[in-house]
C-alpha cells in the first residue's frame, strides 16, 4: 500500500461504483513496475478523466476537448525518449477527437492512448455518446438509442486494429480481481510497446457510470457483464511484433 510511487493513494472524487479510481491506481502501478515515473508525461482532457492529474505523481497537461492526442504528439516530437500517454473518455476521444485518433493510429505515432469507455458523456450530465448501447436511456436519448436515428455504437478498438500504424490494441475491464490484473498487464504491455518504439498502442477500458446509467453500483456491474461486455467483448485485439 505504501510503496506506491506514482498513484498518490488519497481520497478521490469519483462517484461510488466508478472504475476511474481503480484504473488510475493500476496505471500508477504499471508505471511503478516499469520504473518510468520520472520519464512519463500524461495528457488528460475534459469529462471525468480530467481528475486524474490530481491523483498521479506525474507531469500532466490538460488539453482542450478532443485534442489530447495532438498535444501528446506535440510533446513526443520534443521528448521522443519519454513515455507519453493520454487518458480520455469516449465522449472526448471519439466524439470530438476521432480525426486525430485515426490519423495518429495510421501514422503509428509512438504514444499510448488509454480510453475509458463508460457509454455516456459523464461530466456534462449523462448525454448519449458514440458508444451508448442501442436502447440505452440517456439524457438526450430519453426513449433509448435507436439504430435509425443514431446508428450502432462505434467499436473503436477494432477500427484502430485495422490501421497499419497501430501496434497494440486491447480491450479490458476491471470488474473482478483477475480482470484488474489482466488490465494492469495490458497497460504494461502498451507502455512497453511504446518504450520499444513499436508504434501506436491503444487500451480501451470498459467502465461504468452508475450515476448516469441511473442504476446502483451492483445493478450497474450486472448490466456491464450481461449487456455491455456482449457488445464490447474484452480481450487482446492486436499485437504486432514488428521488431
Amino acid at each position: 500500500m505504501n510503496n506506491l510511487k506514482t498513484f498518490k493513494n488519497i481520497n478521490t472524487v469519483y462517484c461510488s461504483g466508478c472504475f476511474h479510481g481503480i484504473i488510475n491506481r493500476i496505471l500508477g502501478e504499471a508505471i511503478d513496475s516499469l520504473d518510468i515515473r520520472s520519464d512519463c508525461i500524461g495528457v488528460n482532457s475534459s469529462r471525468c478523466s480530467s481528475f486524474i492529474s490530481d491523483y498521479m505523481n506525474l507531469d500532466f497537461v490538460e488539453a482542450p476537448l478532443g485534442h489530447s492526442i495532438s498535444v501528446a504528439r506535440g510533446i513526443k516530437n520534443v521528448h521522443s525518449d519519454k513515455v507519453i500517454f493520454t487518458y480520455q473518455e469516449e465522449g472526448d476521444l471519439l466524439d470530438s477527437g476521432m480525426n486525430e485518433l485515426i490519423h495518429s493510429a495510421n501514422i503509428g505515432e509512438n504514444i499510448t492512448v488509454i480510453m475509458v469507455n463508460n457509454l455516456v458523456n459523464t461530466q456534462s450530465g449523462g448525454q448519449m455518446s458514440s458508444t451508448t448501447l442501442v436502447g440505452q436511456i440517456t439524457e438526450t436519448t430519453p426513449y433509448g438509442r435507436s439504430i435509425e436515428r443514431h446508428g450502432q455504437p462505434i467499436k473503436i478498438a477494432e477500427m484502430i486494429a485495422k490501421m497499419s500504424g497501430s501496434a497494440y490494441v486491447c480491450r479490458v475491464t476491471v470488474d473482478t480481481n483477475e480482470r484488474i490484473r489482466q488490465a494492469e498487464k495490458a497497460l504494461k504491455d502498451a507502455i512497453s510497446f511504446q518504450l520499444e518504439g513499436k508504434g501506436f498502442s491503444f487500451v480501451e477500458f470498459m467502465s461504468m457510470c452508475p450515476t448516469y446509467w441511473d442504476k446502483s453500483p451492483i445493478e450497474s456491474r450486472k448490466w456491464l457483464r450481461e449487456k455491455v461486455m456482449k457488445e464490447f467483448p474484452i480481450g487482446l485485439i492486436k499485437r504486432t511484433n514488428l521488431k
Partner: protein
Amino acid sequence: MKKKVFFSGSKAFVEGSIYAGCRYYYGCPSILNSLILNNMSVRLPEVNGIFVQAENDASAINMALGSSISGGQVLVSATTDGIFSMQNGLNYLCGLEIPCVIGNIMSGRFGLRNYEPTQSGYIQAVRGRESVNYKSIVLAPHTVQEMYDIAIKAFELTNKYRNPVIVLFDSALSQMEEKLEIEIEIPILDLEKKSWHLTGAKNRKPNIYKSYQNDNSDKFKTIFEKFGLLKNKTMAEEFMTEDAEEIIIAFGLMAKIIKGFIISARANGRKIGLFRPITISPFPKKELISLSNRVKKFTVVEANRGSMYIDVINILQKVGKEDLNVSFLGETESSIGFRNIISEFEKVFV
C-alpha cells in the same frame, strides 16, 4: 554578417523564425498558407527541426501546445479562417501561459475561394481572446524585411512574457517578393530547460497544467499583471510626422502603400504624415496621444469596415479634446476592396 536576398514575405517569415530558434512547425495547407508550409518543410529538416503537416488547424495549434509546453520553440500559421478553428487552442495557450508564435494571414471575408486581399483579421487577432478575458500580443509587419525582423521579435516577446504572439499580415504581403537583408549564419540552438517545462517529474514536484483550480485568483492576478506590463511595451512608426498637419493611421501593407502616396502628396504641397502601429495589441496609445497634441486631423485607412478605427476613436475620445477630427476611409458601401480604397485615398489626398 548579413546578406542581401530576394524573398517572398512567407519565406522571410520562415527564415526569421528559424533564426530566432524555431524548430517545430505545425500547419495545414490552404492557398494562402501554403508558401509558409512549403518553405518550412524544406528548411526545418536542414536545422534538425520537425515539420508536421497537421490534419487540420485545430490539431496544429494543439500539437504546438504540446511541443511548446515541453520546451520547443514553435511556429504555427494559418489564414484568418483557419485561426477561427484554432481559437480554443489559443485560449489554452493564453490561460496556461505557454509561448507560441502564430502567423495569421488575413484572408478575404469568409469561405474557401475568397482570397482577395483585405485586412479583415484585425478584430479576431486583437480581441479574439477577450471573449475569455485574455489578451495576446499582436504585431503587424508592413514590408518583407519587417516580416523577417518581426518574426525574430515575436519569438523574443513570446518567450519573455509566456504569452502567445500573433503576427498579423496581409495575404499579398506573404506572397510578394522584395529585397531584404538576412543573417547569414543561424546560431546553434542552446535552449535552457525552464522549471515550467514538462520533462518528466525527475527530482522535482510534478508540473500539472489544468484549466480549473479551486482558487484561480492568484493565477489570474499574475496574468493580468502581465497585461499591465505589456501596455508600456508598444512599438509604432512615425513617417514624416514632424511638420504634418494631418495624420494617416494605417497598419500592414496598407501603410506601405500609403507611404508612397504621402511622398507624392507632399510634392503637391499637402503636409500629411503616417502613424503606423507595429504592435496593434497592445495599441501604441502613448505615441498616438502625444501626436494628438500637435495634430488635430486624423484619418484611419484600412481595408476593412473600421476595426482599427474603433480603437483609435476610443483612445482619442478619452483624451477629451473636442477639436480633434477623426475620420475613416475604408470599406463602405461605395468602396469595397483594397484597390477601391486606395484609389479613393488618392482622390482625397494626392
